[in-house]
Every structure is written in C-alpha cells, then in structure tokens.
C-alpha cells in the first residue's frame, strides 16, 4: 500500500502510523490483555471482581482444604481490619460463610476498598466468591464499625496437590480518590 507518491513521505507516514499505533497499543491492548491474563493465570492471585454464580455442585467430603485469611492495611489506612476467624477447613464444592471486622477510629467518614489476593496464585481461578465486601467500596462513618460478609466456594477441580489456600485482603483508603472523582464530574 502506498500512502504517497513520494517514497520518503510514504515511509514517514507509515512509520508515524506505527508509532501512534504502538502508543495506543499500550492502552488498548497491553492493559486489557494483562487483566485477561491475570484472571486466566491468577497472576498476583487476583480473583474475579464479580460474584460467582454458583451452579449446583456436589460437595466433595473426602477432601479438606485449609483456608487462611489475612488482613493488611495499606499505608495511611487507620482502620482496624481483621478476619473473624484466621483459618477454616472446607470441602470443595461447599458454600462457606465468614466475616471480616472493620472499624473506623477516626472522626471522619471514610471509604475503603479491599483488594483480594489468593495464594498460591494457581488456586485463584478455583476460589469462587459468591458474596464479598471486596466487590464494592465500603463506606464507614467516623467512630463506627462493621461486619463485612464473605461467602465462597472452593471448586472441586482444585488441583489435588493444593491443600492450603490463603486469601489476603489489603484495605486501601480511597476516600480522596472518590472525592476527586465526584469533583471532576
């Protein structure tokens, strides 16, 4: 394909288009592709950010999986944040419920976002959350507390060698991020 009669201008136009395309490539290909790969391969132990629609499944009573819960506060997050129980033993296929406890000790109302991460990352795609406080931002008034629910199913297809799954939540303060978003609207 020729973009111009002048071969030099033709070369320049094509290369210019390539460089613009590569700039766009970062935004429209690399970022979404990375997110797809994260979901598919469990990079960083990322789990789906949407509720799993559970299909009726057999509970595999013969297998027991230890599930550990970890709560971490990101920098500048003053809330108290902890799992109600640190460990559960579950059977693949069964629905399990637990809660995380959060308290805002400051006088200001704040908004938090919990980011889940599963370890080993290979287990991420087999760890289904049917209900999670991490799906939404959690607003909390100053000097108040909340019980945040989590419901999950470990898939029966979980590789046989995985016997322990750790679910970590990191709590971020997104109050100012949200305020900026509202302001910019």
């Amino acid at each position, binding site marked *: 394909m020729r973009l111009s009669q002048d*071969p*030099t201008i033709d*070369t*320049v136009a094509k*290369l*210019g288009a*390539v*460089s*613009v*395309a*590569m*700039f766009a*490539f*970062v*935004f429209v290909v*690399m*970022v979404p592709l*990375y997110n797809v790969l*994260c979901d598919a*391969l*469990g*990079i*960083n132990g*990322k789990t789906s*950010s949407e509720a799993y629609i559970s299909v009726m499944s057999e509970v595999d009573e013969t297998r027991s999986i230890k599930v550990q819960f970890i709560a971490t506060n*990101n920098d500048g997050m003053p809330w108290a944040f902890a799992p109600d129980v640190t460990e559960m033993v579950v059977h693949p296929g069964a629905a399990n419920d637990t809660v995380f406890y959060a308290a805002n000790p400051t006088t200001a109302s704040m908004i938090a*976002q919990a*980011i889940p991460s599963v370890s080993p*990352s*290979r287990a991420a795609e087999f760890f289904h959350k049917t209900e999670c406080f991490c799906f939404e931002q959690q607003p909390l008034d100053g000097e108040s507390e909340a019980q945040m629910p989590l419901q999950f199913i470990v898939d029966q297809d979980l590789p046989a060698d995985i016997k322990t799954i750790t679910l970590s939540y*990191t709590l*971020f*303060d*997104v109050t100012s*991020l949200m305020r*900026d*978003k509202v302001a*910019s609207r």
Partner: protein
Amino acid sequence: MGDHHHGPAKGLSRWLYTTNHKDIGTMYLWFSFAMFLLGGAFAMIIRAELFQPGMQLVEPGFFNQMTTLHGLIMVFGAIMPSFVGLANWLIPMMIGAPDMALPRMNNWSFWILPPAFLMLASTLLMEGGAPAFGWTFYAPLSTTYAPPSVTFFIFAIHILGVSSIMGSINIIATVMNMRAPGMSYMKMPLFVWTWLITAFLLVAVMPVLAGAVTMMLMDIHFGTSFFSAAGGGDPVLFQHIFWFFGHPEVYIIILPAFGVISQIIPAFSRKPLFGYASMVYATAAIAFLSFIVWAHHMYTVGMPLAGELFFMYATMLIAVPTGVKVFNWVTTMWRGAMTFETPMLFSIGFLVLFTIGGFTGLMLSIAPADFQYHDTYFVVAHFHYVMVAGAVFSMTAAIYFWLPKWTGRMYNETMGKVHFWVSFIGFNITFFPQHFVGLAGMPRRIPDYALQFADFNMMSSIGAFIYGASQLLFLYNVIAAITSGKRVTDEKIWDGAEGLEWTLPSPPPYHTFEVPPTIEEQPAH
C-alpha cells in the same frame, strides 16, 4: 540561494537552523559527550559516597537522586544520542546519499533534546528534589510516593521519546529511499544495517515508554489507577510495560555498537568481515527476541511457573545469535594482518569485555539462579560490562576511527593508546569487583553497606575515579586533534578501511554525494 555548493552559514545561526547531516551529527556528538560528563559526575558522587561504609558526603535521598539521574542521563542523554550523531554523520556517507531524507525534521530531533535534559537536570533544584526512584521508575514509588518533580521528569521523557522517534523515522527513510544506485540492502555496511534494525526497534518501543509515563501522569494527576491496586490496577503491570520497552531498549543501545565493531575490526585486520550475511541475520534475530524476553527482569515478582519458564528459555536463546557475532569477529581477525591503533584497541577491549558481559547475562537468564543475583551488584556489574565496555567503548572506537575523516586531522596516537589502557584498566578495577560483592549479597542502589563489602567497594571507587579521569584525556585528545592535529589528506586514512566514506576527501566537503557514486561490484562491507 540556488547554489548547490554553498558552505555553512556563519555563527550561531549555522547551528540553530542547520539541516546538514554533518552539522547535526556533530551537535549530537558534542551534546552526548556533555551528558556523558554530567552523568559521569553523578557516578563520581555515587562512588565517592560508597568509598567507605557509613554516610559521608550525601544523604540517602540525594544518593537515590544521583543513581536515578546517572542512569537516565547515561542511557537517554549520552549513549542513545551519541549513536544518533554517528548515524547522522555516517549513514549518508556510507550509502552514497547527499543528506538525510528529512533534513528539517533532523534539526528538530536534535534541538528538542537540550531543553528536555535541561528540564530533567533542573529537577535537582526543585522542592522535594529530583526523581529518586531509579531509572526504571517502578510504580508506586514513582507515582504515589514520587516527589513533585516527577511531572517534569515525565515531560522530559516524552520529549526525548519524540526526538528518538523522529530520528529513527529519518534514518529508516534515508536507508530505504536514498541509497545510491547499486547499493542493495545486502551491500550496505553493517553499521547501516544495525542502525536500520535499531531504528525499527525505536519506532516500536519508544511509544510504549511514552504510554507508560502517560499512565503515570494520569495516575498522579487525573485519578486513574493503572498502577494502583486500590482502584483495580496493578503495580506489576507497570513493570511489564516498562520492560516491554526496556528490553528492546537494551538492544537499541548495543546494536549500533555491533555495527561499529563490524566496521573497525575488518579495517585493522585488513580482511573482509567474516560472515556478513549471518551478521545481518543475527542482528535481526536479536531484535526479534528482544520483544519476547522482557519479563526476565522480573523473575522475582511472582510470575506463574509457565511464564517464568517461557521467559527463561527465550532469554537463553539470545546467546545463540550473540555468540554468532562474537565468533564472526574473532574469525575476522583470524589470519588477518592486524595492527593495533587506538580504534582497534577499543574494539578488542569491546570484544573481550562485552563477551564477559554476555556470559554474566547468560547466568542471569537462569531463573532460579537469578533469585540470588536479582537486584544485586552482580547485575550492576553485568550491565556496565555491556553498556560501558560495550556501547561506550565502541563509541570511543568510532570517534577515533572516523575523527580524522571528519576533521581532516589526526589525533595523537600515543595519547589515544594511553586513553585506552587507562580506560580498560580503570573500567575493570571499577566493575570486576562488583561481581564479587553482588554474589556475596550486596543489593544495588544502596548508599551504605555492610562491612564485608568495604574492600571491594573501595577498589571499585578507585577504579571509577581512574576511568572518569581518563575521559578527560579523551576530551583533550579530541579537542587537540580538531584544533591542531596533524593534517591528513588521504581519502583512505586507514589502509584497510572499506566503504564509500573512505572515497571522500578528508575532511569531506559540506555537501557530499550530490551526484550518487557508482557502486563497485565488490560489496562495500
């Protein structure tokens, strides 16, 4: 004016408005040398602080600013522009073209560089200091936790990226459209080939770097969350994007060096380059592989096993085409009739030290072993063997090789040889011990270290001062040659040199090859 044979304009306007490839090449070379001295001065501060354990000269925060600016200025200000300068001077003369294809754009590509680096250097004086997050600027240290000057850093990266892209488009357009009749692709000198491939790499990956810094800018100022987990982003994504640019960038720096060495070794061996075609294919293979190995910089981020294995195997493969190049150069020397003028000395220095850097690169490619090497001084030693002994030595060789052609005056050969030996010894005293401290467990980018690293660090600092001082000798030799060097009138200054540039007078007239030369049957390499 209408006169095709006019000379340069007088005074400052010659340099401001010039569209002449030789003038622009000269400006690139001087600018990059100035940046080399600035980045070198920062390195001296780093080595002075590391001379002994304990904090003596600077504070830890300022130390980090020095390592960051040293890396950025050496990569983007010294090495890359110096090779663009070399390309400007040589490519038209090597392919028999009167000038670059886009002379006015050429002027712009150069003149936007000095303001970009002035802005980058000025961050040192800003509130909060200069960027202190390393030349790899990993988020969130470079976003949420960055000093306010990060915005100027981003803008500077954008400008120098535009400059590089324009320069590369110009080189590709020149090589593709302006070759003299009969100068087929497989007759081009290898320097032109390596630059052509480098230019394609630049066009492909500089926009990726621009994308990465644009995302940073948006995260910092416009509330997006590309690299912050809080908003659904991921700091590791930054590393993937950065190294998708960064690994090809490494070859952008070294491929033109390969080209230079492939010109010089045959000249002083008085024998044609061995395996011209395989050199071209090896260069193309390295360029291709550079796109699929980026995550070997990230073995410790916690990639899935399959990813780790893929990047390990792909990285190990690079040893094959790189090995081909080294074997070809050695075979070119074999049964030649060698002499050892300064350019040849620097080329042999390149060959030996770059090969050592290649071996450590192979070691680093082994993922489980890299868990021990990663982010230690072993890595610092490795990449200085390929960046300094690779790119900088070859650039120095190039200057000594072509300076008499450009200026019509000879440099002082004895001083050149002294420069080589002092550089070679100083370089090795600086960087060889860094392999040891790295393996023994010294992390990179630390302003102070445990006592068991003290002796080798002192040695390293002494070597750095020697190497640094030897560059002043180089500067003196070049200036002395230009102002009062012995005149050379032969077209072919080096009796073994081949190529169209050696058919031109020394110095070449302001405009050359306005009538395309006739290409002999004998290939120009």
